[in-house]
């Protein structure tokens, strides 16, 4: 009986709509991570930057009453923190991972610290009258029976998230900057001999990744919820990194990976309303990530082995055992 309920739940428009919304804070850090990784400077601090974006957006909106000013502020915060990481790594030679971990530590501690200092709370900002971004109702589409409910009425960040995939695609493949980023990521020596300033390109890549991560954070504190909570990124920054790992540095596969994780997250919420313990269900996205990575690696090995076997079958009369292994 429970499976019945689950299935009915999954195929409801409500659920599918929620999938899109839940994917939003995962797509943002994934796209940000993609740009940085493509330029050879994978950003390990996405989780932390998300927190700063979420935090800044809430506090600026509560203090200025202007939600767009808050969004701008959040974006700037994200870029600034990313620049901190960039300077540490590019100028001062910090190891990328360690500097990223340091920034994450700074972010999770710093946001709670500031929250307490500013409003005396350590858990969340529910006492603050912060704003959230408007939902977007798409004129025509909204009236289509099922599709309308799924596609329309989301917070503006959701649309920005999906739109940004296209923007990133154009950036990476059709602009000089993006092409240079990819060149730098693949062969910095070659790029240098052609006059591309490797560091400059990498700084910009990190700034962009900070921008997107911050938007991911704001999509949590100014859309999903209307407040900032300590540790509210809840691992999405790391999931973003995992999505980039699976996405082979290309926008569409990265988007697909992010959506798979988002789907798992949404599923976790759905199953939570049944008698399945929330914690185990919340673990699904993380488990999915690990399984996804394992499957990916195994797949790659399989392809390589197939190639070996093909040649061996042509050369030898009997297939040697060696050819079936890597």
């Amino acid at each position, binding site marked *: 009986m429970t499976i019945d309920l689950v299935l009915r739940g999954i195929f409801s428009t409500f659920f599918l709509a929620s999938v899109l919304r839940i994917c939003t804070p995962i797509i943002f850090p994934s796209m940000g991570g993609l740009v940085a990784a493509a330029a050879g400077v994978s950003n*390990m601090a996405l989780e932390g930057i998300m927190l700063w974006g979420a935090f800044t957006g809430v506090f600026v909106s509560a203090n200025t009453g202007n939600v767009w000013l808050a969004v701008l502020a959040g974006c700037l915060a994200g870029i600034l923190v990313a620049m*901190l990481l960039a300077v*540490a790594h590019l*100028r*001062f*030679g*910090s*190891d990328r*991972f*360690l*500097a990223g*971990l*340091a*920034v*994450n*530590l*700074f972010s*999770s*501690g*710093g946001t*709670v*610290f500031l929250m*307490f*200092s500013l409003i005396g709370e*350590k858990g969340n900002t529910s006492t603050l009258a912060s704003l959230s971004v408007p939902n977007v109702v798409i004129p025509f589409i909204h009236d289509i029976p099922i599709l309308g409910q799924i596609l329309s009425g989301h917070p503006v960040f959701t649309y920005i998230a999906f739109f940004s995939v296209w923007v990133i695609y154009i950036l990476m493949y059709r602009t000089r900057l993006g092409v240079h980023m990819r060149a730098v990521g693949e062969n910095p020596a070659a790029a240098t001999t052609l006059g591309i300033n490797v560091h400059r390109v990498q700084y910009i890549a990190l700034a962009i990744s900070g921008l997107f991560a911050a938007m991911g954070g704001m999509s949590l504190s100014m859309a999903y919820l209307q407040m900032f909570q300590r540790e509210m990124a809840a*691992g999405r920054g*790391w999931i973003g*990194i*995992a999505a980039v*790992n699976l996405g082979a540095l290309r926008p569409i596969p990265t988007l697909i990976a992010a959506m798979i994780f988002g789907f798992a997250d949404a599923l976790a919420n759905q199953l939570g309303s049944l008698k399945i*313990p929330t*914690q*185990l269900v*919340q*673990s699904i996205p*993380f*488990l999915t*990530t*690990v399984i996804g*990575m*394992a499957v990916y*690696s*195994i797949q790659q*090995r399989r392809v390589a082995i197939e190639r070996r076997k093909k040649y061996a079958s042509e050369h030898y009369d009997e297939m040697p055992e060696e050819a079936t292994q890597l």
Partner: protein
Amino acid sequence: MKKFFDSNNVRSALRIILALTIGLTFGFIITLLVSDDPIKAYTAFLTGPLSQLNRIGDWLEESLTLIFLGLAVTIVFNAKQFYIGLEGQMILSALASGTVALYLPVDPIIRVPAAFLAGMTVSVLWAVVPAVLKAYLGASELVTSLMFNSIALRLFEYILRTYLQLPHVNGIMSERVPEDARLTTFIPNLPFLQETREAWTKATSVSWMVYVALGAVLLAYLLLYKTKFGYEIRAVGANAKFAKYGGINVNRTIVSSILVSGIFAALAGTHLVLAITQRVVQGMAFGFGFEGINIAILTGNNPLGVPIASLFYGYLRAGSDVMERVSDVSRELVFVVQAAVLLLLTAERLLPVVQQVVTTDEEEAAHLKKGSVK
């Protein structure tokens, strides 16, 4: 030790001191900005742990946990594996040890060691998947261990709430660990120490884990620098291709290094549950994971430096607790300071760049710009 005054070591020490000083100064500046009474706050931060015996106890206890974590990270970092699953391992060990201590129906003389063993088993098993995925499939251990951390935290919460939760209390926690399983004080039961013993037992819960910790440090040092296993770990960390070429089984070494470090992470968890919190409680391990990493970095992945670094960070942690209690500054400041220190420490080129800015000699500046300083 004999190469202590070698210029390289002096450079490293200088860097560490510089980083710590800047970090602490940075913390003070922030305190100035947010606090109504910054002097009081920062004084509490810097001297708080020494002011009362129970605070000294807190300091030492936290440091012990950090020692185990620092050792765990040091081992994997020596193999250049970015495995950071110690937070998850620690919390699950705490759960396992606590459960055994609470419910295993045997004499404490068996129950306590069993608790330790349970913790270690769980911790090592929890590391198997990320370790194997990295060694044999090349999957990023950074990402998988982080995922496993998240899963561990939720698994911990689930088991705690469902099976161990104390009814009718405000808070997510288990029963208190029975007296006979709590670790007793580290001060030996000798006639002339009775007074000290009583004072310490009343005010603190610093246990004989002190000796275990010291033993662990020695063990880690011997392991890394005096055994063939340690040689393999360091060879793989120095140049995995070289290690393979020389005949070392790199995959096996990667897996073993991660599993062995799990034993140390387990000690941290067992220590937490049997000595510090004395019950299984939600959030008991918050923030410890990354501190282990901080410590390993601070010591340059050398086990011998871990006790000092741990005492230092433990002091900061305890200090931040005192500060929060007596002033209007929240304890998270310590994380901000630690982050700053970590950033400064990992900045390989920090000293040369600073020198470059300061130096007036053009030639030396150009030389510095080109050269790499080890």
